[in-house]
C-alpha cells in the first residue's frame, strides 16, 4: 500500500500542476455571466463573437460558458447555478428550453442579478407564473423574418401576380418555425392576394424531407411559383428538387438563416434569397444594453435585432453595411 499511495500522490501532484496552468479565476467586480446553449454550432459561435466584441467596446468584463449540446438541459441548469457563485451583476442566458433554467433565474433574481433572455427562448407566461422579471429579451424577430421573405417574393413577382405557393414549416411544435411560416403567410395574403399558399407542411428541419415535399407539391401544382422554407437547409432541399424537375426558372425559393451553404447557393444563382439572422449583432447588442440597464438607463423590454434579405444582387454589390455581420 505504501509505495502505492506515494504513486497516487505523484499523480495528484501532476494533476495539480496541470491545473495550476489554468489561470486562477479571481472574482472581478461587475462581471457579466453569459450562458449559451452550446458553441458547437456556427450560429452560437457568431453570437459569442458578438458578445466578445461588444464587451471589448463597452469595456466590461464577462465570462462565457455553454452546455455541451443543445439538448443538455440539466447540465445547463447546473452550470447556471455554478456561474451564480461568481456573483455576476448580470446573467445573459440562452436557455435550452423554456423551463430548464427557471430555478437558477429565480435565484439570480433573488440575489439582485439582472437576467436577460438571449434569443427569446423563455416563455413570458411561464416567467409571470414563476414571478421572474427579466430585464429585457433580445433576439431576431421570427415573424418579421417570415414577412421579409414574403416582401421579397412580392417585390420579385409583382403585387398582382397569381399562382400557387408552398410553405415548408420547421419541426411540428417548434415555435421558431411556426413564427416564420405564420409571418410569411400573413404578409403574403396582405400584399399579394393572388399568390395563394396551397400547402403548408412540416419539413422537420430536414433537407431530404423538404425535397420530398417539394416533389409531391410540384406533381400536384406544376405551375408553382414560390416556395418559402423556414430554414436554409430545407430551402436548399427544395432547390435541388425544383432544379431536378427542370423548373429552376419558374419557382422562386426563399430560406431563412443566411448560413454559409445558402450564401454559396445564392451566389451560384440557385437559391433566390435567404432572410439572414444576425446572431453576431444579437450578442453585441445584448452586452451594450445590459451596460445601459446597469447604469440605470431605460432599456426596451423586447429588442428585435433586424434580419436582412440576402439576394445575389445584395451579395454581389456588397454595399449593405449589415453584410459584415453575416456569418
Amino acid at each position, binding site marked *: *500500500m505504501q509505495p*502505492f*499511495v506515494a504513486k*497516487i*500522490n505523484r*499523480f*495528484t501532484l501532476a*494533476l*495539480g500542476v496541470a*491545473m*495550476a496552468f*489554468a489561470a*486562477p*479565476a*479571481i*472574482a472581478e467586480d461587475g462581471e457579466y455571466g453569459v450562458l449559451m446553449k452550446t*458553441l458547437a454550432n456556427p450560429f452560437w459561435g457568431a453570437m459569442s463573437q458578438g458578445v466578445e466584441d461588444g464587451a471589448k467596446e463597452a469595456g466590461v468584463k464577462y*465570462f*462565457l*460558458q*455553454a*452546455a*455541451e*449540446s443543445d*439538448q*443538455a*438541459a*440539466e*447540465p445547463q*441548469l*447546473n*452550470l447556471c*447555478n*455554478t*456561474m451564480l*457563485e*461568481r456573483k455576476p451583476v448580470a446573467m445573459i442566458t440562452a436557455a435550452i*428550453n*423554456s*423551463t*430548464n*433554467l*427557471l*430555478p437558477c433565474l429565480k435565484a439570480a433574481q433573488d440575489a439582485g442579478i439582472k437576467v436577460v433572455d438571449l434569443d427569446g427562448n423563455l*416563455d413570458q407566461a*411561464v416567467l409571470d*407564473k*414563476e414571478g421572474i422579471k427579466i430585464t429585457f429579451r433580445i433576439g431576431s424577430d421570427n415573424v418579421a423574418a417570415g414577412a421579409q421573405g414574403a416582401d421579397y417574393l412580392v417585390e420579385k413577382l409583382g403585387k398582382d401576380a397569381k399562382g400557387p405557393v408552398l410553405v415548408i414549416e420547421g*419541426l*411540428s*411544435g417548434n415555435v421558431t418555425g411556426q413564427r416564420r411560416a405564420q409571418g410569411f403567410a400573413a404578409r403574403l395574403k396582405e400584399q399579394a392576394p393572388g399568390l395563394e399558399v396551397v400547402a403548408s407542411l412540416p419539413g422537420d428541419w430536414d433537407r431530404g424531407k423538404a425535397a420530398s415535399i417539394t416533389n409531391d407539391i410540384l406533381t400536384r401544382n406544376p405551375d408553382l411559383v414560390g416556395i418559402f422554407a423556414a430554414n436554409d437547409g430545407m430551402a436548399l432541399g427544395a432547390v435541388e428538387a425544383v432544379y431536378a424537375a427542370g423548373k429552376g426558372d419558374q419557382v422562386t425559393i426563399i430560406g431563412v438563416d443566411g448560413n454559409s451553404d445558402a450564401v454559396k447557393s445564392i451566389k451560384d444563382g440557385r437559391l433566390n434569397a435567404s432572410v439572414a439572422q444576425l446572431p453576431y449583432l444579437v450578442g453585441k447588442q445584448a452586452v451594450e444594453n445590459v451596460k445601459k440597464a446597469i447604469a440605470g438607463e431605460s432599456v426596451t423590454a423586447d429588442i428585435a435585432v433586424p434580419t436582412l434579405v440576402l439576394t445575389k444582387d445584395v451579395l454581389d454589390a456588397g454595399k449593405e453595411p449589415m453584410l459584415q455581420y453575416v456569418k
Partner: protein
Amino acid sequence: MTHETAQPGLWARAQRTSVEQLHIRLESFIVLIVLSAVMAVLSPFFLSLSNFLNILLATSTIGVLAIAATYVIGSGGLDLSLGSVMGLSGVAGAYVAVNLGAPSPVGLATCILAGAAAGYVNGQLITRAFVPAFIVTLGMLGLARGLALVISDGRVIYGLPAVMVYVGQGRPLGIPMPVIIFVVTAIVAHCVLAYSKFGRHTMALGDSESAARAAGIRVERHRRILYTLSGALAGLAGMLFMARINSGDPTAGLNYELTAITAAIIGGTNLFGGRGSILGTMIGALIMGVLQNGLNLLAVQSYYQQMAIGAVLILAVFIDQYQVRRESRV
C-alpha cells in the same frame, strides 16, 4: 427470500465480500480530497457552503442513477436505459399532474412507478426471453425516450402543483430537497448492499451465477427484482429533476446512463460483477461533480470537462488493476 441451504463456501465468500464492501477504496477518496484542495486553491468560490450544496444538487440525479448502476453491474448485469427511463418518468409524472389534474402524491408516485414498470419489462425480457441485458436495455433506451416524446409531444409539460415543486425546490433548513432525498437514498442503498442478505446475494450473483444458483439463490427472480429496482431509482431521478425545473422535459437524462456507469466504475464497481459499494460509487460521483463544478467555476469549456472525466475513468480502473496485479504477485 431464499432457501437457507447456502453452501458454507459461498456463505464464507459472501461474508468476505461484505467485508470488502465496507472497505472504502482509499485511493479514490484521496483523489477526491486532493481534487477538492486543488479546486479550492484555484478558485476563490469553491470553498463555500452554498457551492458545496451546489455540487450535491448537481450530483443528485446522476448519483441516484449511479446507485442503480452499482446494483445492476454488481450483479453481473447492465442497464443502458437509465437515462431514457429518467426522462420518461419525469414526463409521465408531469403529464398525470398537469394534463390529468391528479394530486401531487399521485404525480410523484407515477414517476417512480413508470420507472419501475420500465425496469420490470427489462427484467422479464432478460430472464424469461433470454435476450442479453445489453440488447434489452439498449432497446428500452430507444423505447422509453420515444414514449417520453410521444406523451409530451416533444415539448416540456410545465406548471406542476406546489407540493411537487417543493420536492425539487424546497429548502428545509437551507438544504435543497433533492439533496436530502439523494443522501437518504444513498444511505439506505449502502446499508442494503453492504449488510443485508439481498445485497450479499446481489454481489454473489455477479461473482458466480452458477455458484449462486447452487447455493439456492433464486437467480432469475433476483435479477427481475434488481432491474425493477434499477428502473424505480431511474424514476426517482426523473422525479427529482422534474420537480427541480417545475416541468417534465422529454429530453431529460440524455446520455446519463453512461455518466452513471462511469461514476460506479470510478467508485470501484467491477464491470463484470461481483464487486461494488455504494459508498465508493458516491465518491466516484462526487469526483465527477467536483471536477465539473470546479472547471465551471474556472470557466473552462465543457469540452475539456468531458476529456477530464474520461481520463479519470481510465486512470481509476488502471490503478485498480495495478493493485490487483501487485497483490497477486505477492
